């Protein structure tokens, strides 16, 4: 295996191809990020399919295989297809996805027509145009690689120079127009850049799968970062990695076509990102959800105990409740309630008298804290606009202790207006002023830690 690798790497032709596919991966990863963020991933697919007739026409006009003319032909027909898609969307009731599919399939069909025409001509057989459908990296010769690399480098330089403008344009076209950027020009430029990235990949990856080179590295990169500049770098790296892996694997296992192997390498990287990326990955999300669920379930039990106590205290009833009472107040799986009650009992927050449960003194504090926190949150959601200054993102954990005192005061007043102030002061559940203060601050610390760990 390792020897195979060394052997493969020593082959001069493989070195060329490797160089080409890596640069190609970088360029398509970088430009794919922009396509992805503009929700135009599939336009890349259309461009790739639409390149086929362009390549054939270039061959028919020029007479022999010439990478330069192929690229020009492919780029022109790719741009024409993009233009048609825009025209169809703008001037009829046909929606984007249909327009893309329509242009893509008709251009491709016409390309096939031209292919058969070429196959019949005298020099048709050695044209190797079929390679463009699935890609055949092994057929790349030194000159091809030089042209491909040259174009890729130019693309990267242009993107680097205009990064700021392209970023703004991608993010908010209207705003970009507002501050005087030539958005029409930028749109055309971005399309031209994407088309170029597509056409230089056709020989290696093929018409049908080229879309993957734009989409897969970019969408994988999205999992690792939230910032465009980093995303572009990560996507470029993933593209390069896929290109390298694909080329090496396919040249070692002789019969495998390069394009599909490159694409599957990218897919594997995507799956790894989807599952294992920090924060956005499925594993990390699942763990987070599990932890949140656990905390919420515990808090729900305490809150329910508190709510019931509050109601009972008004009518001077005993603060003892059966599991059924708890369950009617808030629906919950019985098993979940049991396990949480057991846990809270161990923590010393609740105790049971035969079949009835009650909050202990320290449980009273804990419950009061939780209820206060939740009710302040309720009030906040009701008056969200008023408290917009809090900048509370949807997935943060709400903790009233982080709120400034004047805002908190306002919230508390509103809570009083809505009669939502927790009425059962903690002291109701026990006595011992100083001890309690200490305890409650310890508990606050603990809660803060829990919240932080999320």
């Amino acid at each position, binding site marked *: 295996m390792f020897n195979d690798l060394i052997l493969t790497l020593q082959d001069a032709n493989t070195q060329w191809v490797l160089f080409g596919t890596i640069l190609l991966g970088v360029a398509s990863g970088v430009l794919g990020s922009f396509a*992805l963020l503009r*929700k*135009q*991933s*599939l336009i*890349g*697919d259309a461009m790739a*399919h639409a390149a086929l007739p362009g390549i054939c026409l270039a061959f028919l006009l020029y007479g022999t295989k010439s990478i330069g003319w192929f690229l020009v032909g492919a780029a022109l027909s790719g741009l024409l297809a993009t233009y048609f898609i825009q025209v*169809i969307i703008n*001037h*009829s*009731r*046909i*929606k984007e*996805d*249909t*327009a*893309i*599919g*329509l242009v*893509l*399939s*008709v251009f*491709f*069909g*016409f*390309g*096939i*027509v031209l*292919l*058969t*025409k070429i196959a*019949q001509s005298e020099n048709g057989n050695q044209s190797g145009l*079929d390679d463009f*459908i*699935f890609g055949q990296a092994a057929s790349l010769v030194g000159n091809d690689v030089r042209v491909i690399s040259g174009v890729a480098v130019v693309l990267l330089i242009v993107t680097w120079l205009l990064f700021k403008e392209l970023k703004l344009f991608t993010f908010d076209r209207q705003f970009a127009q507002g501050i005087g950027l030539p958005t029409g020009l930028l749109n055309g430029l971005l399309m031209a850049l994407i088309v170029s990235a597509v056409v230089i990949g056709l020989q290696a990856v093929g018409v*049908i*799968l080229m*879309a*993957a080179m*734009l*989409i*897969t590295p*970019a*969408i994988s990169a999205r999992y690792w970062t939230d910032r465009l500049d980093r995303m572009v770098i990560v996507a470029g790296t993933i593209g390069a990695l896929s290109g390298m892996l694909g080329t090496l694997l396919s040249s070692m296992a002789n*019969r*495998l*076509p390069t*394009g*599909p*192997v490159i*694409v*599957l390498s990218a*897919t594997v990287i*995507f799956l790894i990102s*989807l599952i294992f990326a920090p924060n*956005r990955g*499925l594993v990390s999300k699942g763990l987070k959800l599990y932890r949140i669920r656990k905390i919420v379930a515990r808090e729900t039990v305490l809150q329910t105990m508190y709510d019931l106590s509050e109601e009972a205290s008004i009518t001077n009833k005993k603060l003892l409740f059966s599991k059924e009472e708890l369950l009617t107040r808030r629906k919950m799986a019985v098993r979940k309630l049991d396990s949480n009650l057991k846990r809270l009992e161990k923590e010393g927050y609740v105790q049971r008298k035969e079949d009835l449960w009650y909050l202990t003194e320290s449980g009273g504090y804990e419950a009061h804290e939780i209820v206060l926190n939740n009710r302040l949150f309720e009030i906040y959601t009701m008056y969200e606009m008023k408290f917009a200054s809090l900048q509370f993102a949807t997935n943060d954990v709400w903790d009233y202790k982080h709120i400034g005192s004047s805002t908190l005061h306002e919230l508390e007043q509103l809570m009083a207006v809505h009669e939502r102030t927790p009425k059962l002061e903690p002291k109701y559940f026990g006595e011992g002023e100083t001890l309690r203060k200490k305890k409650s601050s310890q508990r606050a610390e603990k809660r803060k830690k829990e919240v932080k760990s999320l």
Partner: protein
Amino acid sequence: MSYGTWIMLTGSLVGVSCGIIGCFLILRKMAMLADAISHTVLLGIVLAYLVSHSLEGIYMLVGAGIIGLLTAFLVQVLHSSGVQSDAAIGVVFTSLFAFGVILLSAFAGKVHLDVNHALMGEITFIPWNTLTIGGMDLGPSAVWMLGTVLIINLILIFLFYKEIKISSFDPAMATAIGIPVMFIHYLLMSMVSITTVASFDSVGAILVVAMLIVPGATAYLLTDKLLAMLIISAVIGVISAIGGYYAALVWNISISGSMASIAGLIFAATFILSPRYGLLSKLLARKSLITE
């Protein structure tokens, strides 16, 4: 029947099947999902062959049906785990298609399937591959397979017409009155898969997309009635098939390619000339307003 008639019949059956289903895909904004499925059925066919060691139609239909549904399902899963829908489609179809191509080349010695054939179809061979039962020649087997699939599609559409219609038009309302919107979605995707696979031999996987999307899009510019749209789309499918055949005959080119090109020309003409939604009629209407 003559050689040419069989080919035109085959093409027309593809045109009708795809034309009708295509309308629903367009209205549900799922054209690209259909495009994806028409690529991934390749994997279904290869897998079906590797499992059954036979190129019988029924295995192909089952294999393609399963992979078609898998495609729709994976897209749904990725989408619901936060991947934007165009990227989800792109990732899924390229991966499954690449896998299919790799399997095909890895088992190249064993599978008598040619990738180019799979993509471009080989309608010229259709009339020779006939179905014989008890020594009787019943005509090309592709015609039988396409006919069966067309009838299945028509029956399903007839049975579920109003459910498909309302869940395409107003999914919220459909859910509220108890129509299983997801079931309808996967039902349509199954129809796309088996139609693709049945058409596969004749027009090829990629050009099925043209037949699925172009006639429907053309009909969409011509009428405001769903039923009329279905019929017009089917008719345009047939015209493209027959026109494509004659064009291919005259210029000696790929039949499936020329069918797609003819469909594209019909669309272009409609796009410009349609009495209601055409470019020209809009322009004229604007002019007459100005001169008035």
